């Protein structure tokens, strides 16, 4: 399909040429883009505009907190990261090639202040490397604008800890966020993701548990209004023993909204003692809410504990009756219930703004 063709020939930057298995990178990427597995990830969203936009001119994100001691921001990158993935993120790798620069944040000591990244448009790729035992609070806000894209790789050295909060609450015509996180032994990563649908918003999240006893949590709340779309593709790979992962994703879809969630858990051979949980709940608010949710499990080892659930429902009639039986009218009761549904997944430093946008209410998060 012509859809999944890179817009122009890639010039592979020198530093990327050392990427293992890259061979002739343009061909490898073209192949990855058209593999059946990758096409499946684009089943419900038209890929063409996203693939085409990988070569759009990029600007720097606005970053604060980068001048603290222990933090270094570079306008270049020296070598590929182990988390770079040609198979799953070919568009993101292509973007690395099209970018004139890649920003690198090296965190070598626990920072007092959070690092805040604001994306006011189509921003350059970023690599964030967190050194062993270091903890970091990372705050990311997207105000995407037209055809904006972000691609970020986070590398957690052993026992590093990252609290990542991310809001994408704007109403861009089209917006793509690619996030790849690789955790080494004993590292902890938490993402609080708050998102609205927009013209067409796509979030690819790839978390790789690449060391023993790593721990990852993903909590996401999304609201998709009429005429808006959100497509979330999450892959969580357990490559090493005794990792723990927990994903809780709640999306509420208005009449005429469209939401896709594809949550794949891949437990590799040898990842014994893994505990992986994923719960995706969708609330449709009308007959014409489109919801696609696909749980995928690939388990190649015994001795794992894994739960994976996806539900699509409407507001609970029992809960609605309970609230209305206390004098609250139907519209208000439905409002409380849908807010409550999202609030269960709103937390962290960006919770207030998320509450205001997603539930129309200021107040305490769950």
């Amino acid at each position, binding site marked *: 399909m012509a859809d999944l063709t890179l817009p122009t020939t890639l010039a592979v930057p020198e530093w990327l040429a050392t990427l293992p298995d890259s061979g002739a990178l343009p061909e490898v990427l073209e192949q990855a883009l058209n593999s059946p597995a990758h096409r499946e990830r684009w089943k419900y969203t038209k890929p063409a505009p996203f693939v085409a936009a990988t070569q759009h001119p990029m600007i720097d994100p606005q970053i604060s907190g980068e001048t603290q001691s222990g933090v270094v921001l570079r306008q270049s990158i020296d070598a590929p990261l182990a988390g770079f993935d040609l198979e799953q993120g070919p568009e993101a790798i292509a973007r690395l090639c099209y970018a004139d620069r890649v920003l690198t944040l090296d965190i070598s000591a626990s920072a007092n202040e959070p690092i805040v990244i604001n994306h006011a448009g189509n921003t350059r790729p970023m690599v964030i490397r967190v050194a062993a035992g270091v903890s970091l609070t990372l705050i990311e806000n997207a105000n995407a604008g037209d055809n904006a894209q972000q691609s970020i790789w986070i590398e957690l050295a052993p026992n590093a800890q990252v609290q990542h909060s991310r809001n994408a609450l704007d109403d861009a015509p089209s917006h793509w966020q690619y996030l790849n996180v690789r955790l080494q032994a004993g590292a902890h990563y938490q993402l609080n993701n708050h998102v609205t649908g927009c013209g067409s918003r796509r979030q690819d999240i790839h978390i790789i548990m690449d060391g023993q006893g790593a721990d990852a949590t993903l909590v996401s709340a999304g609201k998709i209004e009429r005429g808006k779309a959100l497509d979330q593709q999450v892959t969580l790979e357990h490559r090493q023993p005794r990792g723990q992962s927990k994903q809780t994703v709640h999306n509420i879809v208005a009449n005429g909204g469209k939401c896709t969630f594809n949550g794949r858990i891949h437990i590799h051979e040898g990842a014994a003692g893994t505990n992986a949980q994923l719960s995706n709940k969708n609330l449709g608010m009308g007959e014409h809410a489109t919801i696609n949710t696909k749980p995928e499990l690939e388990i190649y080892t015994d001795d794992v504990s894994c739960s994976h659930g996806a539900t699509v429902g409407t507001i*609970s*009639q*029992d*809960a609605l*009756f*309970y*609230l*209305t*039986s*206390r*004098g*609250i*009218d*139907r519209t*208000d*009761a439905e409002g*409380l*219930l849908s*807010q*409550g*549904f*999202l*609030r*269960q997944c709103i937390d962290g430093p960006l919770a207030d703004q998320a509450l205001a946008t997603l539930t129309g209410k200021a*107040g*305490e998060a*769950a």
Partner: protein
Amino acid sequence: MSLLNVTDLHASVITDDGAQPILKGLTLNVRPGEVHAIMGPNGSGKSTLANVLAGRPGYTVDSGTATLTERGLLELEPFERAQLGLFLAFQYPVEIPGVSNMEFLKASIDSLARARGDEQPNTATYMKQVRELAASLDLDPAFLKRGVNEGFSGGEKKRNEIMQLLLLQPKLALLDETDSGLDIDALKVVAEGVNRYRSANNGVVLITHYQRLLDYIVPDFVHVLSNGKIIESGDKSLALELEAKGYAWLT
């Protein structure tokens, strides 16, 4: 003057196999200041009566009337019945994660105040009142921040229902097995709550299986509901008789 009047009520539950008649000509009259206990075997229609009066979806009224303060109930939405002064303490209160008890109670009293044309109570006053009520029912005030009934024990859920009864001050309280699953201390706390609510202006319909509750909340009338109809009415001594003899002698 009648507070709650139910006359010859026939109602069905909607099941996958069609409508199944449950209430088969039920008549009940509650005047202000009265407490009526309704007893009866499992499946006789006690919860159905409470649900039909409160307007729970899933039931149809086939014939008959029900009024609260002489206003027809059956054609109203559940929230309108509540605004008219009806309150149902649920046999199985639902858990609603994400909606805090505080927020829920505030929405409720604000809605009821608006319906009465009163001003919405000031938040600080309301919080204080809720905290005091919670304490009086042995509910840890920390529960107010939690989701509605979320993670509550069976007994806590029932006490929360009584807390709402005292906060909302309805004209008529329908209590569906509020005593079930309570330990003896909690039973006293709940009974004490109901007695605090009782006044010359309001009424209580108490659905229960146990005469024990009636030692604490003394009813003016006891009715036996069987197969969708009231088949016997009497005073408190009827409950004692039922305790001794069961229901078989009546049917």
